[in-house]
């Protein structure tokens, strides 16, 4: 059948898939981004054991494959008495992964702010919270935008793995369609196209806009 036919016949499945993908993705990146900042601060805590435990957490997540983390959470958490909906499991897994990888980037950005900014804040007698919130973080965030944009494109790709724990996202739907139609080119090809378009047309331009907006807001760039 022609491509248009293909799309028309499977439209509801495809649309459901896109909606689920976007839901899982946006929830996990928002949670993950916030968590990344928290982890970054924990990594810079003045208290030794806090730093060590956090470092262990980060190294554990960075050293193990995302798919194993996903399966582990899916199958092993119930043994601890934690019964989560599969969608929540997917979001938690992606968010935790992003928090670990992202924390290094956040920490790097904060540490790259010139020493003079810290010293000026102290000289003005700003409280540590104010110093971080009003001086350091706004500048660090501006540095983060381009890298974070790349990171988030990575996580859109990672989100396709949640289909393997039966979350009905784009990948899952296309696998079903392929099982029925045996048309790999159209089914998986469309899946590739959808992920590509979301990245190219939504995520990357959005981040460039956010970067410019933030730059204007804090008066730099």
């Amino acid at each position, binding site marked *: 059948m022609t491509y248009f036919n293909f799309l028309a016949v499977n439209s509801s499945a495809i649309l459901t898939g896109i909606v689920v993908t976007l839901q899982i993705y946006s929830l996990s990146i928002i949670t993950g981004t916030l968590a990344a900042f928290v982890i970054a601060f924990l990594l810079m805590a003045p208290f030794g054991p806090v730093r060590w435990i956090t470092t262990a957490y980060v190294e554990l997540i960075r050293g193990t494959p995302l*798919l194993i983390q996903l399966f582990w959470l899916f*199958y092993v958490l119930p*043994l601890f008495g934690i019964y989560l909906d599969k969608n929540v499991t997917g979001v938690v897994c992606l968010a935790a992964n992003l928090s670990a990888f992202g924390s290094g980037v956040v920490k790097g950005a904060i540490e790259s702010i010139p020493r003079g900014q810290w010293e000026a804040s102290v000289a003005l007698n700003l409280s540590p919270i104010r110093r971080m919130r009003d001086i350091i973080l706004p500048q660090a965030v501006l540095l983060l935008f381009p890298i974070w944009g790349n990171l988030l494109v990575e996580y859109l790709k990672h989100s396709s793995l949640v289909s393997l724990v039966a979350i009905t996202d784009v990948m899952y739907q296309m696998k079903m369609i392929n099982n029925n139609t045996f048309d790999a080119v159209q089914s998986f090809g469309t899946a590739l196209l959808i992920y590509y378009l979301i990245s190219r047309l939504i995520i990357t331009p959005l981040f460039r806009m956010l970067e410019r907006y933030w730059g204007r807001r804090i008066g730099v760039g």
Partner: protein
Amino acid sequence: MGFDWQWDYSIEILPALLHATINTVIATFAGFAVAMVLGVVFLAGQRTRYPLVSWLFREFVEFIRTTPLLVQVFFVFYVGPQFGVLLSPWVAGMTAIGVHYGAYLSEVYRGGLYAVPKGQWEACKALNLSPARTYLGIILPQAFPPCMPGISLYLVGCFKDTPVLSVIAVTELLNTASVLGTMTYRYLEPYTIAGLIFLVLSLITVACLSMAERRLRKMLGLPDHRH
């Protein structure tokens, strides 16, 4: 069923998991070897004089880098039978990983090539060296060390991506762990041990690769790039 780690079960399944680990390592190196070659092909394709060809390669590389490996694996595995060609899981898996990581590596290679100072190209021209000699003797030896951090990064990434191949029944570590789990309904031990194996191997690989990078720099007489 609660949290209850069974040591004898762990020891029982360990041989199977270790055997699968070997498969994982083979898959990583085989796939990455393909990727290293394809990376050169993709870069050369982007640098040709023919605008249409270089545009095609450029868009293809971007497309591969922006789309999930999982979907690419399924695509490669199932597209064959659609046209009557049966691909074994290993061949399909190596192809998908090779193309996916080849795209990433072409960017790494590009960075390394650009890191060679322009004056080197000019000195080669002044000495009237042939293009072949220019690349092989002068440019590539200098382009390679800057590539090493990127290559290390993606080698470890490739290693951690091999579990994706379990979906097309490549008998690597995650696949074996899953099979053991479904057989005995005990998932805790197989997945945890699999995760730990990955962790240990990742850490070792990262350490070895950074040592190798420093050695290579010293051997080639290039200055040390502390980062």
